[in-house]
């Protein structure tokens, strides 16, 4: 069975919110729309977003890191939001594993948002129905689009390519390879929901420069047999890594 999902690389996400706005742009006018706003130009504006980025810090100065953490529905393999729905509005698609809400059946009781341990559900205060990330179901299943565009809007928008999309049940897919080789992990696995979306961890990157690397091999001063640079006088130009 296919299980479509996102893999989000926390090591490259810079928190630009391009995924947030592109998601809202596509979905407010698409199959899952509208994504209504309350008090858009007044005090304390609020509204429906299928995708949000939370930013937080870890560590104590000077060993601090800032994390940008994009958060949307994880399309769990065993979604707790589906069995609690009294009307059957909340369902998981058999063919590709995407968790969706049928707005016509939803009565806005919010049981699913209580059941979801990830806070991924978004209640529309205006339409009084529960909404959520659809993985851009109206894009990814639209066969009239070229295959390169049959991806969620957030994946196409991400300028750092922090978001990868694909089938996590296919061991050779890009997402499966990324999870396997870069230590991808699900959120709160102890809940037994088996989230499909995975996150790639932050990695420590340090530049290791050795003495001999500080002098460029093709330094023109060397070629012309000119006196070499003084010991302490390396410039940025002489650094090769």
């Amino acid at each position, binding site marked *: 069975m296919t299980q479509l999902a996102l893999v989000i690389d926390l090591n490259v996400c810079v928190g630009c919110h391009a995924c947030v*706005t592109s998601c809202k742009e596509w979905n407010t006018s698409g199959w899952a729309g509208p994504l209504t706003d309350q008090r858009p130009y007044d*005090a304390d504006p609020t509204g429906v977003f299928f995708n949000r980025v939370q930013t937080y810090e870890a560590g104590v*100065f000077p060993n601090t890191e800032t994390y940008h953490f994009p958060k949307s529905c994880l399309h769990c393999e065993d979604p707790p939001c589906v069995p609690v729905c009294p009307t059957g509005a909340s369902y998981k698609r058999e063919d590709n594993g995407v968790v969706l809400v049928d707005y016509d059946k939803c009565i806005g009781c919010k049981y699913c948002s209580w059941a979801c341990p990830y806070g991924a559900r978004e209640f529309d205060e205006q339409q009084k129905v529960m909404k959520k990330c659809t993985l851009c179901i109206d894009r990814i299943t639209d066969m009239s689009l070229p295959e390169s565009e049959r991806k969620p809007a957030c994946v196409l928008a991400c300028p750092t390519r922090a978001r990868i999309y694909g089938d996590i049940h296919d061991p050779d897919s890009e997402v499966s390879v990324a999870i396997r080789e870069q230590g991808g992990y699900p959120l709160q696995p102890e809940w037994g929901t088996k989230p499909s979306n995975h996150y790639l961890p932050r990695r420590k990157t340090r530049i290791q420069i050795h003495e001999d690397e500080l002098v460029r091999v093709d330094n023109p001063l060397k070629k012309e047999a000119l006196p070499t640079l003084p010991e302490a006088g390396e410039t940025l130009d002489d650094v090769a890594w």
Partner: protein
Amino acid sequence: MDTQTYPLNALTQRPMAMYHSWDSQNAWLRQIHTHNYLFVNPRTAEANGFGDGDWIWIESPINKVRCMARFSEAVEPGTVWTWNAIGKAAGSWGLSPKANESQKGFLLNHVISEELPPCEAGEHMSNSDPVTGQAAWFDVRVRIYPAEAGEPEVTSPQFKPQKRVPGQDPKRGKWQAFVAGAFRKKAKIQE
């Protein structure tokens, strides 16, 4: 410059989701950032006697601004900084005068001098880069201290709300004039 009285450096940055004030009045973008905080290292805040989220004053030799503090371990203790694209004057950018941008957001511009202090070079030297003319931002020295208990919980300085420009208000037909008051209320037209 008396660095004993003004011991901290104040910097500005842009949030990643928007640049400058351009289009940050957009209904979706302003849900991402509706107001800004002054980011302060917890140790600096403790030394100055205020907590996370408290209302504080940031004061330079020329002016002072009231704003909210947010603890951040990602800032060096001798420096404070903020996003300088969020704060707006009341009623500007087509927003309501009660919008968070004017009530909780603030601009650090008010503490930055346009001119350098009088020196040997002259009385009125522009506080900008002599080659490019770029305004000097990163050499502001400030001190911070908590706001008094009774002070209003809005940013300072506050200005009279800007007048709405033509076209911003809903149009009202001439025939509505004889019950104008009622329709003004219904159409939410402000005086």
